[in-house]
């Protein structure tokens, strides 16, 4: 028993996080920045932060992850990090030649009070930023929010730095073709971003998806070392986000901030909705695209929906009232809970380390009449230690979450579906989406495989079944 040190009895904890269901802001900012073409994320802090984030993203994607660091030393912590950042920008633009440097802060640089916009202005003044290149920033102290907050802040900063007011001439040209929409996909995988683009294209919509890590963190084998793989959303494309008819923001925690900033700045109306994971949420997403784009839903998408529904009905006998524990990030958890409810499964324990104002309301809403039976918690002591204690007290049929769930799954002998960040020990998340009807079908297949494999494993010889 790996987690033999977890007692069954739950006791009140005030100031201690054990086995966290979250990590810190900067890694989210780094991941978001990777979704811009030719962008080098830059960590303004100690070397270790950057190294840890790169290692974790590398383990999650099995890809080289490039990011630079201000390499703080004792001196910087006393006199401020201005000279480190100025020297960094000089080094970065002369050696790595990115189009964009996306600076995020750390707990250290935040606490000593570095003023990043002022330093960027100084760098510009001193000619350290080449023409046509950009330096953007996000404030991401590690002691506020979580990795999701860092992601959200960096996405918002894309709006702050790149969005330009609606250009009348450009808008006319744009409207002449397919209707234009912005889609902020939230913290999802490159596979999901590809799927979102595919759905939009199938509906005849010209979608600007940002950030977009497809082509970057799922880059194909090339035989070359590429500092900036060919993927991501370009600066030119980002500049036109103000021209869109509307913004569809997926996942309130990760995407709402950017969408409302854009509405304020460029008067682009926005609609924030839950991530399109599962049938109902995908229905709402597709419908939002239909309404906002003024288009029809094509038969091909209807067919995908029909197939999903077909499998849901064919196999519902294996899903009925299965008890599920899930942990991870708010946006994923809310959408997933709704999907589980559609499948007549029973989400009983839900835990996220990310503190947000509306999480409990959103989960309650997704749980409908089961809200009072389920246990859900967010914030510092909502960690995997607590989740494990709950499971020890009354077990579940399925555990869903990132790789760190594997200890609980093993100790308690519970089927385990890997979903979320980070996934350090499987590869499917990079290439196969979980959003849209296709993504829901894949999640469904995975869950069924887990249940049916378990049934095969545990069945006594006499009732071992061939046909299921």
């Amino acid at each position, binding site marked *: 028993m790996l987690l033999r040190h977890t007692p069954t009895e739950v006791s009140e904890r005030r100031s201690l996080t054990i086995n966290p269901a979250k*990590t810190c802001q900067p890694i989210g900012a780094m991941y978001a920045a990777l979704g811009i073409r030719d962008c080098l994320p830059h960590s303004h802090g100690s070397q270790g932060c950057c190294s*840890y984030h790169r*290692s974790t993203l590398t383990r999650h994607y099995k890809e080289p992850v*490039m990011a630079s660091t201000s*390499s703080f030393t004792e001196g*910087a912590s006393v006199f401020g990090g201005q000279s480190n950042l100025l020297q960094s920008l*000089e080094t970065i633009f002369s050696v790595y030649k990115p189009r964009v440097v996306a600076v995020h802060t750390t707990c250290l640089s935040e606490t000593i009070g570095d003023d990043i916009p002022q330093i960027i202005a100084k760098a510009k003044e001193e000619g350290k930023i080449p023409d046509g290149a950009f330096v953007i920033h996000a404030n991401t102290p590690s*002691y506020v929010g979580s990795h999701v907050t860092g992601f959200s802040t960096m996405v918002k900063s894309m709006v702050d730095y790149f969005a330009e007011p609606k250009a009348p001439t450009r808008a006319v040209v744009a409207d002449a073709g397919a209707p234009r929409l912005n889609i902020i996909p939230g913290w999802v995988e490159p596979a999901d971003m590809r799927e979102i683009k595919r759905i939009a294209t199938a509906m005849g919509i010209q979608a600007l998806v940002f950030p977009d890590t497809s082509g970057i963190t799922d880059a194909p084998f090339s035989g070359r070392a590429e500092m900036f793989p060919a993927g991501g959303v370009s600066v030119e494309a980002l500049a036109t986000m103000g021209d869109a008819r509307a913004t569809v923001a997926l996942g309130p925690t990760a995407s709402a901030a950017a969408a409302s900033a854009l509405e304020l700045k460029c008067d682009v109306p926005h609609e924030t909705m839950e991530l399109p994971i599962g049938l109902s949420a995908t229905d709402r997403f597709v419908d939002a695209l239909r309404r906002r784009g003024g288009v029809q839903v094509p038969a091909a998408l209807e067919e995908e929906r029909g197939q999903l529904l077909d499998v849901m009905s064919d196999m519902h006998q294996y899903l009925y009232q299965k008890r599920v524990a899930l942990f991870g990030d708010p946006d994923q958890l809310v959408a997933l809970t709704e999907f589980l409810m559609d499948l007549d499964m029973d989400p009983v324990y839900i835990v996220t380390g990310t503190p947000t104002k509306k999480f409990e309301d959103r989960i309650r809403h997704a749980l409908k009449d089961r809200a009072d039976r389920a246990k859900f918690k967010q914030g510092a002591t909502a960690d995997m230690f607590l989740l494990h204690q709950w499971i020890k007290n009354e077990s579940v049929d399925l555990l869903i979450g990132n790789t760190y769930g594997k200890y609980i799954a093993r100790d308690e002998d519970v089927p385990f579906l890997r979903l979320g960040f980070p996934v350090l020990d499987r590869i499917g998340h990079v290439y196969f989406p979980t959003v849209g009807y296709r993504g829901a079908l894949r999640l469904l297949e995975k869950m069924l495989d887990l249940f049916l494999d378990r049934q095969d494993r545990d069945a006594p010889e006499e009732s071992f079944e061939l046909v299921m």
Partner: protein
Amino acid sequence: MTSAMQTLKVLSERRDQVQQKGSSSDAVACDRKSAAGSVSQRACVFCGSRVVLYPIADALHVVHGPVGCAAYTWDIRGALSSGPELHRNSFSTDLRERDIVFGGEKKLEGTLLALIEAQKPNAVFVYSTCIVGVIGDDIDAVCRRVAKMTGLPVLPVHSEGFRGTKKDGYRAACDALFSLITLDHSKAAEGHIRPAVNLLGEFNIAGETWMIRSYYEEMGVDVIACMTGDGRVDDIRRARQAKLNLVQCSGSMTPLAKRLESEFAIPFRRVSYFGLEDTAAALYATADFFQDPKIREKTEALVRREVSRVTPELRAIRSEVRGKRAAVYVGGAFKAMSLIKALAMIGIETVVVGSQTGNRDDYRVLKELTADGAVIVDDSNPIELSSLVQAMKVDLFIGGVKERPIAYKLGVGFCDHNHERKTALAGFEGMLNFAKEVRNSVLSPVWELRRRPFPGS
């Protein structure tokens, strides 16, 4: 070869940290801070302390700081325990904005007391992070108070990330270990009569400590404490009963070995268990130290038996991979030395070698061990490493987590010789595992499939 060097992408500040053997008689520059703005493969002070102390399995390891530092170091080392698994949990004070303003000492104290009561550890290590250094929490005072209240060793580890490099983190870890060793004089005073050693800088990745321990047991030498693989607090507290310290990962543990030598007259030897040659040398050095013919005899028998057991298969592998070219980029330079020798044994020439933390002497030795034309590099980065792999026509890369995908993207074989090794690579058996892993990766058919099957652009 010179043209290979000319096509390299090297930061101008780093010109003297990259050198081709035969092109210069200057020493390789090192012990430098990384250039700000570079994509360095290095980590921080905290990382250094955390990786060294983490394998002590019956201690609590509490990270005082925001959650990230604890999250990223949660069970990433593959350091195995034969008993408790406390070290594989992640405990942190998860400092929030409020704590940054008002200080985190109270929170730390509450956390420690609650955890000690619940987990009953044998000792506690409290790691300070960047932010703690800036807000000025007095973790020494908190540790003293909690130690007094609980009667346990509660040891502060001064590992604020910005206070130097990973090496300084090793030093902070050594300081904490030294405090633990010297905490209680009565424990240390009891003499151990049989020949006994401590293993330093051996972390039991993939069970390597168990393998090495079994060699010493067979030789008739007791291992008092392993620092820190499969480590136990009580063993470490008895470490002064050993007559000799065997230091493997010299980059991390030499400071502790030196202190134990100067203050308690326990001598130390730098050893390595990577490769047949170095493993045998390590065992013989131990035997020679005790000057006991019986030990010597048993050691000879052991080495003879093990070498003859693995040699036939090694020879077969050598015939398959001979002539391949390797790049070695690891944390410590001493490991790089062993790897060059181990690779040479299976006919692979090391044409690029580097480390994150090597010193002047290390690089001098590395230069001696390699052939003319080999490139020696300190504190490298992905672009530099990639261009070296291509310019030097490398077939095999040996490195850690951040190097693996680079090698694969370039289409060359890879062997993790760091935290993510999956089989034991130490000792005689480990050499065979290493050779197999190298062969399987270098000769994988996947590298042949890269040719485009379609005509046209």
